[in-house]
């Protein structure tokens, strides 16, 4: 078997970059960072003594409504055990040691330097505090590499901490009542889970408007009907859901790893592969399909036989003038076949 001249520019890019990273890191190590306190907000915990943790009862005196709502949160289960370390208990587990906060109440401009207030701090700052406990969901460096981190979206952008799902406070006035009562984007969308602020379509749709709008197309994945959620396909955290998907894929494809989790019949490998399905043509399943929604049946990029003609320009009208290449009973093994090199049988 012959082989084309194989260069390794991919590896080259990596190898060129890594020394830069290593040198930078080494230079930082040389500065003996171990003696430096970690940056805010971890500095609050690092510098605090046991006496700095005053307990949640002190917080209630000023922040009564928040303390009440927190009692309804699933977080309360894990954070009110008196035998936990004081920096993992109650309000101070997330907001930092209370005594330091109370000692710096006078200077309003600097009040946010001594307490972690998630509505005003940067997402990257707040997320560091969350990951003190949630390292099994994501480490800090993993979070840095996510698209959400680059777009300045932190944990509390999607998750609510003080409320459990379906346990919201009763509305107090008309404006807030609107927030409590308003409908999701799709009436039948799946209920929110994992302390999410809303159902996933509504929440993700606040930023990803064009994508969510595509679910209104004539053919779509059943998110509006509540049979799927955005995280069924999209990996927000590197948790076991992603592990499941990368296991289900059989040939370490990229996008198709997700698809074959449900569409197992497309996984293969087949004796006769179609390049677009086999992962060597570029975008895998998305070479032919639009995953959110499409005006073409089967979520296709183009209507009917136009899909195949996008690449197979030599198989035009003179090849077969009928309906789609697969529905005419010809290329029925379009994703791959174990019996026919022209994919005429499955």
């Amino acid at each position, binding site marked *: 078997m012959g082989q084309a001249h194989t260069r390794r520019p*991919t590896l080259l890019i990596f190898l060129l970059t890594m020394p830069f990273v290593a040198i930078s890191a080494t230079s930082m190590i040389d500065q003996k960072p171990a003696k430096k306190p970690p940056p805010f907000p971890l500095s609050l915990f690092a510098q605090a003594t046991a006496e700095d943790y005053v307990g949640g009862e002190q917080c209630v005196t000023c922040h009564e409504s928040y303390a009440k709502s927190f009692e309804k949160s699933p977080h309360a289960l894990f954070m009110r055990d008196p035998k936990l370390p004081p920096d993992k208990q109650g309000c101070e587990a997330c907001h930092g040691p209370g005594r330091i906060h109370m000692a710096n109440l006078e200077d309003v401009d600097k009040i946010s330097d001594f307490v972690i207030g998630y509505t005003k701090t940067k997402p990257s700052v707040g997320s560091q505090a969350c990951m003190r406990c949630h390292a099994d969901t994501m480490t800090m460096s993993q979070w840095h590499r996510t698209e959400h981190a680059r777009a300045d979206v932190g944990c509390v952008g999607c998750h609510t901490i003080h409320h459990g799902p379906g346990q919201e406070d009763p509305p107090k006035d008309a*404006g807030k009542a609107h927030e409590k009562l308003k409908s999701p984007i799709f009436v039948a969308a799946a209920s929110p889970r994992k302390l999410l602020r809303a159902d996933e379509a509504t929440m993700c749709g606040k930023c990803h408007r064009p994508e969510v709008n595509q679910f209104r197309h004539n053919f779509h994945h059943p998110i509006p009907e509540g049979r799927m959620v955005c995280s069924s396909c999209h990996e927000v955290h590197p948790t076991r859901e992603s592990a499941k998907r990368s296991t289900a894929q059989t040939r370490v494809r990229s996008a198709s790893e997700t698809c074959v989790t449900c569409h197992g019949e497309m996984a293969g490998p087949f004796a006769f592969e179609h390049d677009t399905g086999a992962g*060597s043509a570029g975008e895998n399943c998305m070479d032919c399909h639009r995953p959110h929604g499409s005006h073409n049946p089967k979520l296709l990029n183009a209507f*009917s036989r136009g899909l195949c003609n996008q690449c197979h320009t030599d198989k035009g009208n003179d090849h077969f003038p009928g309906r789609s290449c697969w529905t005419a009973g010809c290329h029925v093994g379009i994703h791959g076949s174990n019996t026919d090199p022209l994919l005429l049988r*499955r």
Partner: protein
Amino acid sequence: MWTRIHLTCALFLFALISIGAPVAGFGAPQPNAFGQEKAAQEQPAQDDKEEPKDEKTEEEKAPPKPPSPLLLELGWTDWNVRTNFTKFRQYATPPRGFFLRELRYDPLASPQGYQGLLSLKALFEDDYFSEGRFDYAYGLTRLEGYARRNRYFIPTTPFPIPLSERRIQEGTFKQFLSRDVALSLRFSEDDQTQNFESPRPFQVQKTRYSDALVGGKLGNGRIETGFSTWRFYDRTTVLRDTRLDRWQILYAWDALPYLGVEGSYSRFWLDQPGAPSSEVEALSFAGDLAFGRTTDLSVAWRRTKLSLPVVHNAWSREQQIGTARITQKWRNWSLQFGVRQREVERIRGDQTFVDVPRWLTFEGRLTGRLHKQVRLTLRGAWEDLQSAPPMVTDDPRPLFWGGRKHAQVRLEGGNTDVGGYASYTFRRWENDPRGVRIESNAWLVGAHWQVTPALGFFAEYLKESWTGRSASSVFPTLDLFEPDTHTVVIGTTWVVDARTYLSVQYTEYGTANQNPLRLPDGNTGVRNFTIEARYRFPAGHEIGFVVAPWSYSDRIVPLMDYHTTVILLTGSARF
């Protein structure tokens, strides 16, 4: 029947655990483990604290009333479907007749340390979907169970076809061995029966997945290792059954507060009856380095080696992908630039030669605030294919896309009272050797206006236009198969008072398709009008009323049309 059995089992299991846990100590908290004694010593003495001034009454000091844990939602629906029944049921949207919308038991965390959730939806529904879920945590143990069934149609023809069905059941057990180490076991099964338009035969398949993972803290990082099995069964014996075993190990190391490194290795064994065994090996590294608070560099590299003797035509024996991205922030702006290279060692269709196609991609993103209330986002990507492989077919010209371009401009502005957004997205796919160029332009504009705190309006318009061109000018040309589409959504919400809510929403969707072969599903229009009213009683109970005149029309094949006026009544009560 299937769903009834499994949900009954789930209910029984939930009840058993709830009863047994406090008695038998099942999964009880382990208070003396993990250095908690030390922690208790470190806790400041409560007696030393200065008591805050407390001038509240006994009533004010009383703990807040916990929310009701039991929710029951019932409903009744009338479809009023005229014409094509199966097209309406394609996505199995609403239930029919009397139905259980949800029965949920969601108690607060108990002082004993257990917490649970049981949710049952639309049990015994023939259409729609039935769902049961339980989630139980006690101390360091967590159990989750999930089962769902839904039925639907795949209507590509106006003539009746049999019903399709999908059933999923999942179970997860997670046990913390220490505060930083956990073991989890998982099993899931997915059964699908799909019926298609003739002559395509029906499809009955099952996939099973199970895994065992152990993960925990190691040094200043986290290690995770596990074994998983995925199986695919085709009950129609058309496709080969497949078994995939995988072992993996991953270590994510936060080396320094500003440096993180991650490495993973996994190995797959793939078996199909009557075919030689295949193997896959994947190795990946990733790193992130923060230069202060404003600059962040991420790199990643992954190599996958494949051995697929089962394949007789073209396949990839090795894939590599490397990415580097740098993000710079200043004030209210953020700039991101990345480069990605992917290369594949692809064995040609006749298995005589190895080609190495290579994709080089540059991507950028700039986002920031033009004004305190106006945000601008520019993003783009440019991809080029080098060394495109020739095809072993009648026409040897490459079939791969030689270039892909993507650009997007987004502008968002306003406040909670008045706001709007607009975006323009451009995409292009090119295959120069075959003279193919496909372009897509999408415009999206939307706005909301909160006239008063109680009354608001919103509107959104999306227009997508597609063009296609190829070297072939024989009718029907490629452009005739690239339809345009538009979507309009207009709505209003009115909070009549603190307990009454009213919303009206109109959605219109249409395609402009030249459809030279006069096929169904090509020239369609949808008009959905939905009126919803809800009232919440002081005790938390709620009633709802929905009227939804929906219509779907196919201008080429009117037999695909449906017209309906769905009426939905719901009532929910908390106990």
